[in-house]
């Protein structure tokens, strides 16, 4: 998996591309979120639109990132959830606890409300 970072209106956006799976993508995601926090960012948006596969470790890493950012008094939100990832979030009932937005425009704006 590839992770790239950009800024928009004070929000750090992490664009994920590829598989978030055990031993590979999950570690890359963890490192990217940690680095973002270390750089002082507390408003973090994860763009999932190019995620092709996510296993339970990948989901676990999303949950861990959400908890870590929240504990550091930040906010972590997701957008661009592909259909199969959406199915996983529904099945695991994580849609009830994670902040999931429809698109980037809405998601970025939500941080300033």
């Amino acid at each position, binding site marked *: 998996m590839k992770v790239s970072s950009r800024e928009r209106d004070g929000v750090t956006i992490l664009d994920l591309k590829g598989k978030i799976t055990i031993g*590979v993508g999950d570690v890359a995601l963890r490192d990217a979120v940690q680095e973002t926090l270390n750089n002082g960012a507390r408003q973090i948006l994860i763009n999932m639109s190019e995620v092709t596969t996510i296993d339970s470790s990948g989901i676990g890493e999303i949950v861990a990132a959400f*908890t870590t950012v929240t504990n550091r008094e930040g906010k972590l939100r997701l957008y661009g959830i592909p259909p199969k990832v959406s199915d996983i979030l529904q*099945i*695991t009932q994580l849609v009830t606890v994670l902040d999931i937005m429809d698109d980037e425009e809405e998601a970025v704006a939500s941080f300033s409300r």
Partner: protein
Amino acid sequence: MSRNGFPEIQLSIGSRFENIELVQVVVDESLGRTELDEDSRYWIGIAVREALANAIKHGNQRDPGKRVAVGFRVEEDVVSISIADEGKGFDPTTVDSPLEPENLLRPDGRGIFYMKRFMDEILYDFGSAGGTTVTMKKRIEPSGDDPRAVKEVEG
């Protein structure tokens, strides 16, 4: 060779997460020869990933000297995939449900839930000399049936 002409496949991999990708390629190719629809093949692939990850991580404790054996066969209208490790085994009835409110934000504990959710039957065999074999079965349904739509799984 299975009775309906599908070749029975047996693989043996070292306990490294990278090897999950290799097995996935073989399983995807094999599933592509069945009448399973694309969605079903995708979800079976996820279940296989989870079983392999459990075998490597929890079963073999990531010991590269220990092997994971994978078997794939199609008989009649059922796909059967078995994954065997060399670990100490575990009690599947003690695994917590990831859907309990207190577990929702746990970063782990969803692998077996996925396997149960995406497959029709999960069987465990604990060898007398150690090692766990999990066998996952999936009926080949006519295209158009959503394998996730009607199935409810307890954690």
